[in-house]
């Protein structure tokens, strides 16, 4: 990714390409996409993710029953053609609830990571850009935050604030912020000393322009990779917290809280426990596969 590449150049190349017709210029992004396309596992992960997002959008059309539709005569049924994944102890169709669950786990996972990167990333970028004392102070504060293991920190914050989506997102974002700031810091540090940064400075680019227009686009590779893995971790944390009763609570069809409710039924209706966990695993697996592929595609030196 450490190639000389600026937005202005891309514009010029686009114009040139238009003039010539078919010739497509090679940009780092296109090169990476070419490499990613060849990685079958990564593409599989991507397809699963796209499918999950589509399911979330069209949940109303896919789910055969409503979220809270209780069929009291059909309680604790094992999977059948009428109820693909069976029913729970209130006679609710598990398949429908899992379908609606995509609307919760995926967006929350993404939002947590976006917030963690927005705050942590900004701090990390500032630390890397200014270096010296600023770097020292910011990173030592992050060190202190990291001396509480993230899961524990999330439990502590979620417990203090109480249940609810907003509190859960806050808990997970804050607890993962230090790790994200480290990733952005490291990424910026690797591009900071390049000549094109020096030349941009020489033309008179100010700090924010240097950071946003020159450093960030060139450092985006490891950040994107880590973003994907972070969403996977965030989804796992959301479901774990909901499972122990600190996140999203019972009637909402979040996969972790569905498992929490199903725990009591382990002996009578074990099928209630299988499918929500399977869905979490498939989602996280898809993210990890895509992340692995992304890492290999964006940094071909590795592997």
């Amino acid at each position, binding site marked *: 990714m450490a190639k000389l590449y600026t937005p202005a150049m891309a514009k010029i190349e686009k114009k040139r390409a238009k003039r010539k017709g078919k010739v497509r210029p090679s940009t780092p992004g296109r090169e990476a996409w070419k490499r990613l396309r060849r990685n079958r596992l990564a593409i599989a992960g991507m397809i699963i993710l796209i499918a999950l997002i589509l399911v979330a959008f069209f949940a109303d059309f896919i789910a055969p029953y409503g979220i809270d539709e209780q069929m009291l005569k059909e309680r604790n049924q094992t999977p059948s053609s009428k109820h693909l994944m069976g029913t729970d102890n209130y006679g609710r169709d598990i398949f429908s609830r899992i379908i609606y669950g995509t609307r919760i786990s995926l967006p929350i996972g993404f939002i947590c990571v976006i917030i963690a990167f927005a705050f942590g990333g900004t701090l990390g970028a500032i630390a890397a850009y200014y270096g010296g004392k600023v770097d020292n102070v910011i990173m030592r504060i992050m060190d202190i935050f990291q001396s509480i293991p993230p899961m524990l920190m999330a439990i502590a914050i979620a417990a203090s604030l109480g249940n609810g989506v907003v509190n859960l997102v806050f808990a997970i974002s804050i607890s993962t912020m230090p790790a994200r700031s480290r990733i952005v810091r490291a990424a910026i540090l690797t591009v900071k000393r390049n000549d094109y940064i020096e030349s941009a400075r020489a033309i008179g680019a100010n700090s924010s322009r240097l950071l946003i227009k020159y450093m960030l686009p060139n450092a985006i590779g490891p950040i994107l990779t880590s973003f994907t893995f972070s969403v996977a971790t965030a989804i796992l944390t959301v*479901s774990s917290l909901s499972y122990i009763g600190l996140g999203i609570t019972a009637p909402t069809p979040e996969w972790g809280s569905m498992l929490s409710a199903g*725990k009591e039924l382990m002996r009578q209706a074990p099928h209630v*426990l299988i499918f929500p966990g399977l869905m979490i695993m498939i989602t996280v697996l898809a993210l990890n596969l895509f992340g692995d592929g992304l890492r290999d595609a964006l940094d071909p030196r590795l592997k």
Partner: protein
Amino acid sequence: MLRYIIKRLIWMIPVILGVLCIVFILSEITPGDPVDQVVGYDAPPEVREAMREAMGLNDPVIIRFFRYIAKVVTKGDLGTSYASGNPVLTELLARFPNTLLLTFASVIVALLIAIPLGVISAVKQYSVIDNASMAFALFGVSIPQFWFALMTLLVFAVKLKWFPASGIEKFSGWVLPVAMIGIANVGNLARITRSSMLEVIRQDYIRTARAKGQKEIAVVVKHGLRNALIPVIANVGNTIGVSLGGAVIAESIFSIPGVGKYMLDAINGRNWPSVQGGIVILAFAFSVTMLVMDLLYTVIDPRLKAEFKAKNKIAVKKKTIREAA
């Protein structure tokens, strides 16, 4: 070297103060009145007011903050549990060994499985063994720990009855919780070992070792693994942190009387001193482990030691020059 160790030791002080500060802030933002938990919601106002005064809740935040820090630092007093009336520290210390044992057992088991797995994968890259163990590793990091625990409970405790579903009175009670926390660690550490080993195996000194006719096993273990282990060891600290978090959930699933279960029970009972005490204890344990790991790391990686020595030599040289002048 000594300077680094001293510096690292002194750094523990702000870390612990910082943790206490975070815990105090969390207790401040917690909604609800602590007096409710001590005397009950329906206590008469004068009783409540007296309790409030006795607990020091009428003082300004700053005073309460310093009082809290002073109490913890000088007397190791983490407050009294609302539920039992006993000091939180005593209750925590009784449970702490279980949590520690669970965490370390699962990290050690994970290392014992992950390192051979990663080494074999790297040595036989792209073979069936490599693909299988990397697929296993990927599942390990993707499976929700608590769900894995529920599934093993379902199969091995409820159906097959090989292991007890809860408690640690019998040794077999440890198997499922350790497996639950270990599974994610195995995945992670095996992947790290593999990529680190792959890098080492392509180095010149490995080719030299082979060229001088060393046995393959000696090349892989003595020349390869020793060098490849450094990033793995660097990751053990992190793994312990993740495992501590996992232990909290494992204890609640398998009803193990540890700090995690104690904390989660306290959260449900709104017994905040116990929750905060648990966080302080676990964060303290984690900080100490990180300290030990950092120090160990400098011992294990000879390159770091050499760097320190070189720096010292330069410093000594500069000093003698200055003195001569």
